[in-house]
């Protein structure tokens, strides 16, 4: 979220000519506030982050943890001690949902940022240097887009890290599935950003001021940093927001299939692993985690849509 700072100034300076009375930032905020679904989504996501961060407080309040089992309370309906009831081995559903939310949000944001980094690098190189390098990198990108991604993700997620020489103390630790899924998911999530940055770099490279900078002896690295990147920041911000939602979906799918986040760490995906066997006895257990995924992902998508309207009004397909 901190990435959007430089973008408003740039975009709004250009469109600010027609309405000199408004500061650039206020125009962006005003355009964003007009997108009602995006505003609601932003509020929802803010609340979600706050509640998930406060998950340990809920543990204290309810007097149980996300791993505490209570075999006498299997499938217990909602009660004051367990506001959303208990699961198939008597764990508190609400607390597991909150911890699952932490994991899903963390993985989504971290993977989207990693993917944006890879994508920006590939896109900059391809768009700025052009020629053979461009053709090669873009062919590679197109190739990845066309592949059946999910099977690859499944295989990559299932790889035995010990065979790669990772010490077994690390390979078998609880958190390794967290890092691994961020890396695996971002390995395939960078293509959109790469294409956006390449397009931006291609068009900026031809502008007069870039030629002027070249003539003044600016290095390639400086031109990319000072002239190209700021011009593509707003589409990147939009793409990152949209991809957080998409990557949360991918993470939950992998976790559901049993190769993502591993127990005892809960995630919205792995909370549904047993759901299919339980649909006759406890359908509610299948509803909550999926609903959380759905609401979070749709909120990120609306947020991205709203940011696009606000930051990049000319590129927006909705209000053109």
């Amino acid at each position, binding site marked *: 979220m901190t990435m959007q700072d430089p973008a408003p100034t740039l975009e709004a300076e250009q469109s600010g000519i027609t309405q000199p009375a408004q500061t650039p930032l206020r125009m962006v905020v005003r355009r964003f506030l007009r997108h009602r*679904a995006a505003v609601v989504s932003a509020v929802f996501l803010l609340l979600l982050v706050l509640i998930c961060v406060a998950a340990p407080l809920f543990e204290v309040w309810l007097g149980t943890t996300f791993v505490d089992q209570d075999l006498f309370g299997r499938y217990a309906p909602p009660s004051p001690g367990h506001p959303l009831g208990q699961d198939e081995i008597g764990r508190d559903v609400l607390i597991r949902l909150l911890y699952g939310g932490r994991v899903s949000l963390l993985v989504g944001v971290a993977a989207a940022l990693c993917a944006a980094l890879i994508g920006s690098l590939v896109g900059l190189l391809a768009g700025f240097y052009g020629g053979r390098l461009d053709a090669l990198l873009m062919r590679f990108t197109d*190739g990845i*887009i*066309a*592949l*059946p*991604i*999910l*099977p*690859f993700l*499944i*295989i*990559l997620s*299932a*790889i*035995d890290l010990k*065979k*790669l020489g990772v010490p077994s103390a690390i390979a078998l630790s609880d958190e390794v599935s967290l890092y691994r899924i961020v890396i695996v998911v971002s390995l395939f999530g960078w293509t959109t950003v790469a294409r956006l940055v390449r397009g931006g770099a291609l068009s900026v490279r031809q502008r007069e001021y870039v030629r002027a900078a070249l003539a003044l002896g600016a290095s390639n690295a400086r031109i990319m940093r000072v002239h190209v990147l700021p011009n593509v920041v707003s589409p990147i911000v939009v793409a990152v927001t949209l991809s957080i*939602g998409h990557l949360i*979906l991918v993470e*939950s*799918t992998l976790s*559901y*299939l*049993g190769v993502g986040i591993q127990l005892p760490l809960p995630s919205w*995906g792995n909370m*549904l692993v047993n*759901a*299919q066997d339980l*649909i*006759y006895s406890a*359908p509610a257990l*299948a*509803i909550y*985690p*999926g*609903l959380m*995924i*759905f609401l979070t*992902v*749709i909120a990120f*998508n*609306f947020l991205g*849509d709203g940011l696009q309207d606000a930051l990049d009004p000319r590129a927006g*397909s*909705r209000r*053109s």
Partner: protein
Amino acid sequence: MARFLTERLLQALLVLLVMSFVVYMLIGLMPGDPIDLMIASDPNLTAADAVRLKALYGLDKPVIERYFNWLMAALSGDLGYSRLAAQPTLAVVLPRMGNTAILMACTLLLALGIALPAGIYAARKPYTKLDTLVNFLCFGGISMPSFWLALLLIILFAVTLGWLPASGMAPVGSERFADRLPYLVMPVVTLTLLNAGVLTRHIRAAMMEQLRQDYVRTARAKGVGETAVVWKHALRNGMIPIVTIISHDIGTLFSGAVVTETIFGYLGMGKLIYDSVMGNDFNVALVALLAATAMILLANLIADVAYAALDPRVTFAGRKA
């Protein structure tokens, strides 16, 4: 045309070759080891037997050499045996390809059947209440976790209402295709709902772009009816970007099929890949993944040919393939 096709087919073969190498390497890194599995299933095997078995299957050689041996055998038609099914790999993979092709073709047709009217309507009446509603539904489809949608449909139609079978391919012992249809409904509906949203948004954007063009105004000015303007003039041009989108989405569609097939117990490529990866059935995993990629590349090629048929400006000779 012939040159274009040859070039594209050669390219596809190159992609498959690179993929077979990458996947072979990756699968070697999966947990488990074929010899360990044999030892686990037969307590009478000794350490000496294990060494002999390793030599028999060539597993004592470096991985590059094993890959070339596999490739040579594969090129001569020997794709090995399936560990789980105890059948030749090809006999396991081939029937599954047909099932997935049926699933994906039904999905694509149904999704287009929904997305075309919805997208065109939204493009003709943009920013109205109905356009907003369509847009919301699209966001819903895009944001829906595939496995959760499948679970919800099972809970509603199989558990609560009892209208449709929860999983499987056909009633036990039945060979008639008509008996398979009820089993096809939920996987197809799941995949359709997941994909129709993206399609609708793209169709709406493409049609809005076309309806702004001068030739559309000209057609209206000379008195062409609105239906013909939209469905003949604008759609023909709008289809060009849409076909590209569809061709790009086939990989995504297949990824969706992996999940839905697994949940609904539909015996297609997606479930086969998942089961063989999870069950250490390396021969099948490798061949199935390559076959799935080949299917997707073929679908992309068909889309490219359709692209040229739709846009007379595109010629195969001049196009960078």
